[in-house]
């Protein structure tokens, strides 16, 4: 094998332009696949980080009846905050949130919303809840930029809000928009109004109660609490993983097309080689190679395109990928369209497994398309091959 590698390298380098054209095409595949996959990895990381920073922290306790996909469950999804949590809440390592359904009436229109009560002094989440700690002539509220844009609201606006208390009675009051925040996490932005926790608790007649309790530490094993279920960080970000997986499958089609184009060039070269290099094949046999060894030599030669492509790709790809990781890419996607966190600019992340995996896949694919036509050599008659006679 060592000899096959040495000879294959000599043959490839000796073939000059033909080799380098194939190598460059294949190296494009390397770099583009790594860059595109890097975006997905970067997206995944950024989405999870943003979700953790803005919404889920290190995990959450959910009220047993809470179902984020069923707004009607909110009437039942509340219970007193367990006493065991009071220490962590005081230290700022836990943030209780009470959620209630409501309706907003901006400029006479009607918008169904979720009213979320949160401690204005919390620092666990990036929500600018300190802007709730103010005195205005109405209930202070903060909303996300998407919510503000959709309802044409701005800081300082007063808007009518309706809600229902635990007895089913409807109430109406005005809220004052004291802050508008910009976030990539749509679940804390779209159709969400954040007000002080104690205000909401008294509005809905649920003093000391919450729907979800977010905790800071993702690593520690959280104890079960009666009436609450522990939602780990991983279970809360599972949707992102699923979405990225779906995107990844779609993107794979693009990779496959790209790779097929590059592999077609290798395959073409291999097929041509078998026909054009018959004399050479015969010569190898005459000099002491078995036909199987010639098959190995030609396969290694084809596969070595991938090795050279990896080297060539590294030469221009590493600076490009580093620049790309720093600069990022703006795809013009909106998190409101996707329903989960997407940054305006996505920064690719290249892991060792991504680079090694891509290299392995390209190497394997190249080896297969190199071996396929090379098998023909095993059936060749060496005496005919020596004369360069087509077989």
């Amino acid at each position, binding site marked *: 094998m060592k*000899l096959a590698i*040495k*000879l294959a390298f*000599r*043959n490839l*380098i*000796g*073939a*000059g332009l033909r080799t380098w054209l194939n190598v460059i095409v294949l190296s494009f595949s390397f770099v583009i696949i790594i860059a595109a996959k890097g975006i997905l990895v970067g997206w995944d990381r950024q989405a999870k980080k943003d979700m953790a920073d803005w919404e889920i922290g290190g995990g959450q306790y959910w009220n047993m009846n809470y179902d984020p996909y069923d707004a009607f469950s909110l009437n039942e999804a509340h219970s007193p905050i367990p006493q065991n949590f009071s220490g962590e809440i005081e230290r700022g390592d836990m943030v209780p949130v009470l959620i209630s359904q409501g309706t907003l009436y901006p400029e006479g229109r009607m918008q169904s919303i979720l009213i979320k009560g949160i401690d204005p002094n919390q620092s666990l989440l990036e929500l600018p809840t300190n802007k709730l700690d103010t005195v205005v002539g109405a209930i202070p509220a903060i909303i996300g930029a998407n919510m503000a844009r959709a309802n044409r609201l701005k800081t300082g606006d007063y808007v009518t809000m309706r809600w229902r208390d635990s007895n089913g009675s409807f109430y109406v009051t005005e809220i004052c928009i004291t802050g508008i925040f910009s976030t990539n996490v749509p679940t804390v932005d779209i159709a969400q109004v954040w007000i002080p926790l104690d205000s909401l608790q008294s509005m809905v007649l649920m003093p000391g109660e919450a729907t979800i309790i977010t905790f800071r530490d993702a690593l520690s094993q959280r104890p079960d609490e009666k009436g609450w279920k522990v939602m780990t960080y991983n279970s809360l970000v599972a949707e992102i993983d699923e979405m990225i997986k779906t995107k990844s499958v779609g993107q794979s089609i693009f990779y496959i097309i790209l790779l097929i184009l590059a592999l077609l060039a290798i395959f073409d070269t291999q097929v041509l080689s078998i026909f054009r290099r018959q*004399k*050479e094949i*015969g*010569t190898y*046999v*005459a*000099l*002491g*190679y*078995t*036909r*199987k*060894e010639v098959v190995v030599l030609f396969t290694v030669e084809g596969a070595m395109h991938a090795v050279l492509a990896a080297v060539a790709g590294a030469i221009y790809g590493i600076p490009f990928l580093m620049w790309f990781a720093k600069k990022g890419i703006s795809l013009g996607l909106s998190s409101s369209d996707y329903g989960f966190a997407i940054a305006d600019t996505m920064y690719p992340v290249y892991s060792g497994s991504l680079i090694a995996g891509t290299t392995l896949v390209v190497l394997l694919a190249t080896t297969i398309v190199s071996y396929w036509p090379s098998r023909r050599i095993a059936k060749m008659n*060496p*005496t005919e091959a*020596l004369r*360069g006679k087509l077989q």
Partner: protein
Amino acid sequence: MNDDFIIRTEKLTRRFPMGKGEFTALKGINLTLDVGEFTGLIGPSGSGKTTLLNIIGSLDTPSDGEAIVMGKSIGKLSSRDAARLRKEKLGFIFQSYNLLQVHTVFENVEFPLLLLKYTIGERRRMVLDALEWVGLTDKMKQKPPQLSGGECQRVAIARAMVKKPSLVLADEPTANLDADNSHNILQTMVNLNEDLRTTFLFATHDEKVIGYLRRKVYLKDGLIDRIETV
């Protein structure tokens, strides 16, 4: 005939399928070559000389009869053993040189030594020796397309001789060369035959080659017509 033979064929027959029938290229050849001979198979096209050379070179196998080369029956060798025989004991020189076009002269001559797993130092020394025999030391960095026909054939001789094989099989080695180059090449081979006691077997119908042969085996229609010894 004595026991110091390097090649012996007995009733060697080779048939090739042709259309619905068969064509018999060799019709029971009996021939013995001793070590150190400088012999030629002579005959017109289709007489069977290249077929006989291919079988002796273990590139082909007999249909009937036997070809024993250096004690090994060619028809009974596995492809691996046949490859080993070619690699270790045989040297080939072809009409159209069959050099590896993308390799340099040095690399072409080095190739058989790579197969035999010589060390880099041994390879370098042996290649330089071989290039010196054929007078191409100054061309070792060039590639075959940069050489003349005579130079290419000298590279082929160096490649065949570099591992000092017991037997060199040369198929029409001068067919593509002019008279001067042919004589130079043939004189080189005579010298190597005398110096290294390497056995040479030619397939040729070139009068220039025939003039150098010490034994001439004339073939006609797959049979030995006559044998002349100088």
